[in-house]
């Protein structure tokens, strides 16, 4: 071209949606909101308890048949400490991780609190030990996954 700056046409996607959660997730979230309980569903063929609750097991396409309450405590399987601000995501630093609650055969994702993030490297070394964690519920619950988060238990209980 003749040195003219390439033209940019502005654009913006700003659509709103309502996601239909389905009956199983509806019950899972109702239990969180109304009873502060974390519930799973059992696959009658494998016996596995899936948390969060699912209508069917993705691995074998088998419908789950039974609701099971699992413990509020479990093990932090994997984590990350987000250290940089990304547009549309919360202010850093924050921790997210997958936790296997006692009585569950799958892991559930949530935010993890109760660890000093003033030095991310130090915090990471602590979390690499896969500490025990406990679900802590908000006072004001609305039936969302953010109604609770995990808090690291420090009382000598690693693995």
């Amino acid at each position, binding site marked *: 071209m003749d040195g003219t700056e390439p033209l940019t046409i502005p*654009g913006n996607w700003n659509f709103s949606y309502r996601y239909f959660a389905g009956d199983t997730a509806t019950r899972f979230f109702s239990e969180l909101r109304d009873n502060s309980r974390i519930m799973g569903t059992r696959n009658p063929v494998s016996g596995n308890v899936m948390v969060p609750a699912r209508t069917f097991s*993705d691995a074998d396409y088998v419908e789950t048949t039974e609701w099971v309450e699992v413990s509020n405590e479990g093990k932090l399987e*994997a984590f*990350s400490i987000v*250290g940089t601000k990304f*547009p549309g*995501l919360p202010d850093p630093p924050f921790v997210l991780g997958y936790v296997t609650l006692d009585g569950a055969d*799958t892991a559930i*994702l949530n935010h993890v609190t109760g660890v000093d993030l003033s030095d991310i490297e130090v915090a990471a070394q602590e979390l690499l030990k896969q500490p025990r964690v406990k679900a802590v519920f908000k006072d004001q619950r609305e039936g969302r996954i953010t109604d609770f988060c995990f808090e690291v238990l420090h009382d000598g209980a690693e693995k």
Partner: protein
Amino acid sequence: MTDRIAIAGVGQTVYRRRHSDKNSAELVREAATAALEDANIGLDGIDLIVGGVAPDALAGIHNIDLLSISRPGIPYFRINTGGATGSSALLAGMTWIASGRAKAVLVVAAERMGHATTAQSIFNSIFDPIYEKDISMSTISMVALRATMLMQKYGFTSDHWAGLAARNSAVAMLNDTVDNPRFFTKDQVRSSAVLAWPIHLLEACPTSEGACAVVLMSDPNVGDRKAAWIHGTGALSDTYAMGDRFHRPEGSLVNLVTLERSAAKAYSEAGVTDPLNDLDMVEIQAPFASSEVMAYLGLGLCDGNDAVAFTERAIDGTAGIAIQPSGGPQACNPVSATALIRITEAALQIQGKAGRRQLDGIRRTISTGQGGATQFSTAVILGNERP
């Protein structure tokens, strides 16, 4: 495979953060035209076009392939398996040749993420809106979760991630398809900002745009073209749910069962029994160092006991196999195209057309594709000889 199929031509644009001087169709035309020229065939000789585009929201144009890839008078369909889109598109194109419906297929994968001003918040929208999206996942934290598991399970350290990133950045300096490649040392990686621990800024692949095209042909039509022959392929899907993959007997979240099984099928078709000896080169669809390490395991280049030592040899360039001679996706990762680029890079090496990054004696290669939260894997083995 019963029918022999070859890559008869490849074409690529340069990959850069923004191609602000080209609209999407112009970008695609550059790669497609180059591939057709390389294969010495016209569009009138093409029986099918397969388009590869991953999430539309990165481009901000719904079905961007309809305006940029499909051509009048030629059958067309689109493939989307996230980061594996490009290789999945190639495999889909092969089925038309294998079934006798096509003699020549043009596969085009295009990434237009330079349009997006907030790529990471768009990537957050790929997660399950019911149970996971509210936990502020991004593609980077998704990878970081697995990197921490590798550290727990095998004893990797942040030094390994930084070392691989630095090694790939050095190799990419020779890759003329990467515009303005970034060179950095291991220490620079480690002292760059923490994006999502253990991932630092310089380990993360940069925003990358561009298009890659491949012409596939059935055996009799290849003639005397210097082709790269497809010796074996495999592709497999896994569950979307990462949380379901922690405790299953066939392997945890860091054991890429889909890649392992895809590679096993490709090895069996190609007669590969010892990948380290039977293959000369590997191009892995790994946007992060930890993804590359998981693929070493999945491809059988090392086992769990040897994973750290093998990775250290890979960093030193003494692994006994050429790894990421292009610099890999850590140098540039145009998501929709990146898995097709891995195959294209292997084809270029086999044909002796890789320019400054050309290696000696590359006769058999494997290229991987990984998409979703490692939900989709592909493996493609190329060779210089008719199988």
